[in-house]
């Protein structure tokens, strides 16, 4: 499976990984090699085989819709890098989405 640099750039953007040039070069080669191994299964005719997402099937796990103790606001915010007025603080999200 050939992975080119443009694909790596695209996937890195989707994955929110600001990789260095050197990492992108390396990743292009490594991903190609790993996917080549994975390509073994692409040749299999499995259209009649159902996919499995969980090995031990358990369906419709329900609980009563009741209030229960949970994290306090203070606890929920305790690990955050930046907090203001009891909320998570982040830089601007409305500008500069362009590449």
């Amino acid at each position, binding site marked *: 499976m050939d992975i080119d640099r443009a694909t790596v750039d695209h996937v890195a953007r989707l994955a929110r990984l600001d990789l260095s040039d050197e990492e992108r070069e390396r990743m292009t080669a490594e991903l190609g090699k790993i*996917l080549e*191994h994975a390509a073994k299964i692409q040749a*299999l005719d499995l259209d009649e*085989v159902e996919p499995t*997402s*969980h090995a*031990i099937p358990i369906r419709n796990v329900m609980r009563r819709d009741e209030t229960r103790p949970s994290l306090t606001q203070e606890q929920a915010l305790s690990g955050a890098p930046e907090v203001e007025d009891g909320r998570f603080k982040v830089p601007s999200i409305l500008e500069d989405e362009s590449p």
Partner: protein
Amino acid sequence: MSELHWTSATELARLLDRKEVSAVELAEALIQRADEVDGKLHAYLHRTDERLLEDARASDERRASGETRSRFDGIPTAHKDLFVTKGVPTTSGSRILDGWIPTYDGTLVERCTAAGLPLQGKLNMDEFAMGSSTENSGYGPSRNPWNTNTVPGGSSGGSAALVAAGGTPWSWGTDTGGSVRQPASLCGLVGVKPTYGRVSRYGVIAFASSLDQPGPLTRTVTDAAAFLQIAGGHDPMDSTSIPEPIPDYLGAIESGIEGMRIGIVREFEEAEGTDPGVKSRVGEAYQRLEKLGAELVEVSLPSFEFGISAYYLVAPAECSSNLARYDAVRYGLRVEGPDVVSMTSRTRAEGFGDEVKRRIMLGTYALSAGYYDAYYGKAQRVRTLTIRDLERVFADVDLIATPTSPSTAFEFGAKTADPLSMYLNDVFTVPVNLAGNAAISVPCGTSPDDGLPVGLQLIAKALDEATMFRAAYAFEQDLGWAGSDEGRPSI
């Protein structure tokens, strides 16, 4: 009592019960042992010595007033660093979580506390449990007590190194593709991958949710069964938890394997790349099972050759989704940027190590538009083939016996240059995670080639840990290696 640190949890429970040792004496012995060995091993990421002594004092008080929480009250443990522990740093081996202090205990941690087990600390691991050697830890690798120039295996390598060196009788790891069984094999220990859903994943930092399963690492089969009984069983906080009580594994553990049918997998025996020393020890182990009264049956798992390929699509796909939570907003590292996207992207580039980035990229690609059916979808269908294969074989046998790992402990750097060669370490363990079955690795001595431990894997039907423990116990007792001088590294 000079060798307290080599004593099994089951035996320590007897000593505590007869007041021949106190929990505080035991805690002090294990602190001393950690001081002796951890400079060489780097098993710990965080020691909680003060809390250990406090917990031990409380345990001794409970025992004095006849209010022990379980028969193991006062026997300490240390957890792999992906079990969330309230007030105790938890990193999952990643720099992105450096300094994070959780605000709650996971279910498994809570149950260990409820049984009265004092906490020794948190143990090293490959970052987010991705790896087979601890070389992917963001905090430097752990070393194998049998030979400190070799890896302890991974990803639960810190747990394996500490138990093997007599630093604790038992430790919880997690097994997504072999991460308990492989380090157990490389360190001469017992390691269990319970049936998927047997042990709660609530409070376990996620890697690949449909494969992750916590499992114990111990020096004896009995301790492993006891530890699973302490922390396993249904948990309403995990919707994939099996809604059944945990059975009594210890009651019938001594009943032997007379008449059991044990499958030997043709494709595994013919697989290239297994060390000759591993082959010969595991071959002897098969003969020993036969001598003990089991009937060996040749079986076939044709889908085996596709297991690694399917695993290395399913696991990265799920990890790419799970690790999206490290966004520099709610916890962990933040590297500033002019907007949210660049802040998140810079943080993740700096906070994650190479292997984690590789798997996130692989998983994101496998799930991306146009490739989902060809990769993730196809891998999920191969998963069905693996399940069918095992179901067919288990219609005829009680257990399957295989090597746990194709090699003994390898030297640092031996497999880091080629990710694929590291992945191939998991060939015999990965199919079990894909299918959800239970399996155990039990020591079968050391390799004649390098003197390092070799593990035998016994795979059971889903939910049938009891049969697996029975066979592993019979084998362990007959071999007489565990607990002998020969079965201990000289560290």
